[in-house]
């Protein structure tokens, strides 16, 4: 079915590769990626004289960029996926409650969302990272909290609309319990929207993490993420562009892949649209 959409297929392949990097990268390459070699400092890309790991060049401490990018995939994807998943689960749960429960509960939850939205995310980052350790888990926490309102508002708005639909009333007439209506009837309908937002948010979170590193309050070495690499490589932009370019390119490619895949997913998740892919597959395959 995926084959039907060539772009989505390429995107899926790319993301699979990233996933493999994330899972096996650190185990295989951790030593190489953190091995400093000041002679290979800012080594230029596209030469293989130092081995193919230096294909993309070396960083400011002479560590091979390719290896670092592969190793960094784990942290980067963990942070982004963790933050997106946490904010989506919490946000949409609150949104479901706000949309389906009484007016007062809904109102309180919405005001909560307002508060989170106007709480400066940088302050939140400083507070959390000051009071807790500046670890990946806590960074996920910070990023997740700031993204909750998006899911909360979207979910609530969708629930308010979907709950008025006929098939929800049909379920009510059959005597379905509230939880059944929410999880069996409402959630599946709004899930594609949430997943679409989640894929877009994935990019946002990667960039936010990078911006936090830029401001000096994000992930800190020796941990490494693509965002951190971009932010560290920034000062070498004029004389060693590759330090910031490759990890930046990875962020862009991952984002684009997710975007393409989310477009495909929106169709694939919808029974009334799915035939497009099934048919396309037959015709092309």
């Amino acid at each position, binding site marked *: 079915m995926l084959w039907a959409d060539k772009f989505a297929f390429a995107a899926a392949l790319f993301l699979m590769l990233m996933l493999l990097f994330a899972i096996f990268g650190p185990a295989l390459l951790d030593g190489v990626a953190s091995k400093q070699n000041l002679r290979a400092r800012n080594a230029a890309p596209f030469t293989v004289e130092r081995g193919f790991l230096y294909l993309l060049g070396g960083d400011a401490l002479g560590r091979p960029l390719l290896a670092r990018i592969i190793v960094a995939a784990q942290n980067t994807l963990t942070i982004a996926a963790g933050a997106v998943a946490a904010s989506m689960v919490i946000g949409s749960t609150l949104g479901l409650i706000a949309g389906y429960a009484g007016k007062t509960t809904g109102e309180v939850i919405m*005001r909560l969302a307002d*508060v989170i939205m106007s709480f*400066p995310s940088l*302050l939140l980052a400083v507070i959390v990272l000051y*009071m807790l350790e500046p670890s990946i888990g806590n960074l996920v926490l910070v990023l997740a909290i700031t993204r909750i309102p998006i899911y909360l508002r979207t979910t609530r708005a969708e629930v308010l609309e979907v709950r008025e639909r006929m098939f929800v009333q049909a379920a009510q007439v059959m005597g379905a319990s509230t939880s059944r209506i929410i999880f069996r009837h409402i959630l599946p309908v709004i899930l594609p929207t949430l997943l679409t937002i989640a894929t877009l948010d994935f990019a946002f979170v990667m960039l936010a993490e990078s911006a936090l590193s830029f*401001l000096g309050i994000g992930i800190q070495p020796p941990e490494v993420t693509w965002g951190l690499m971009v*932010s560290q490589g920034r000062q070498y*932009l004029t004389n060693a562009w590759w330090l910031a370019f490759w990890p*930046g390119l990875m*962020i862009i490619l991952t984002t684009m892949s997710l975007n393409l895949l989310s477009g495909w997913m929106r169709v694939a998740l919808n029974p009334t649209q799915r035939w497009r892919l099934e048919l396309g597959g037959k015709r092309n395959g």
Partner: protein
Amino acid sequence: MSSMLGKRAVSSFISLMVLIVLVFFLSRLTGDPAALYLPVDASEEMRQNFREIHGLNDPVLVQFGHYLADLVRFDFGDSLRKARPALEVVLEAFTWTLELALITMALVTAAAIALGSLAAFNIGSPLDRIASLLSLIGASAPDFWIAIVGIVLFSVSLGWLPTSGTGSVWHWILPISVLFIRPFGLILQVVRGSMITALGSAYVKTARAKGVKNRPIIFVHTLRNAMLPVITVIGDQAAALLNGAVVVETIFGFPGVGKLMIDSILQRDFNVILAAIMVTALAIFVMNLLIDIAYALLDPRIRT
């Protein structure tokens, strides 16, 4: 309308109060400003004296009481670092942010609507594809990266634009361009999608049956209908800009509220943080109000 406004004001006020309480207490958990403000070799006596002068020795609840009492008299306290009224500092910075946000959003809106409408009308054309691709790439590149590349390219290598600062019209081009990219990509996509839906509407058929020409069909009949979801996104993006564009302000030396906020946070200048939050919250409240008014102006169904 006025009762809705009142309700809105009340609920926003409640949110704001909760926010202030949270920020007030949480920020005080992040360390002693005296340690940051004074040089590392300052004596304990000096620190004690500093805390005494700024009321930091009182129990936090008492500090909060003082703060509220002052707030009622519209006194937002003084900035620790700048030894000036916090509100004055914030309003100064906010003026910059406001200008930057307004100009950027005006340009983004105009460009995204024009290009998005054309892309929607010529769906699948090269224009459509290029616009989508560029907006996607632009939206996923780190902004500080774009900013520095922009300076290196346009200021240092080509010498066309000043690197940074606020002096003339030329100074605004780079920061606005960098800020432009992300909301532009997003709004372009929304305009495109919304216009595609609207162009498929029944009333477009009616207009064609009436013999209305293409241009009024796109820009009179369809666009106004397609604007409703677009306005929501414009509002969200504008709100983000009103909160300050930290990265761009930092790099281009723009004295906006985002830079002020990050500096105050890192320096634990609590009064400035709180004043900045209140000012931006008020601005966002006003902006949401404007958006509601825009809704009502655009769609008569909302008016009644």
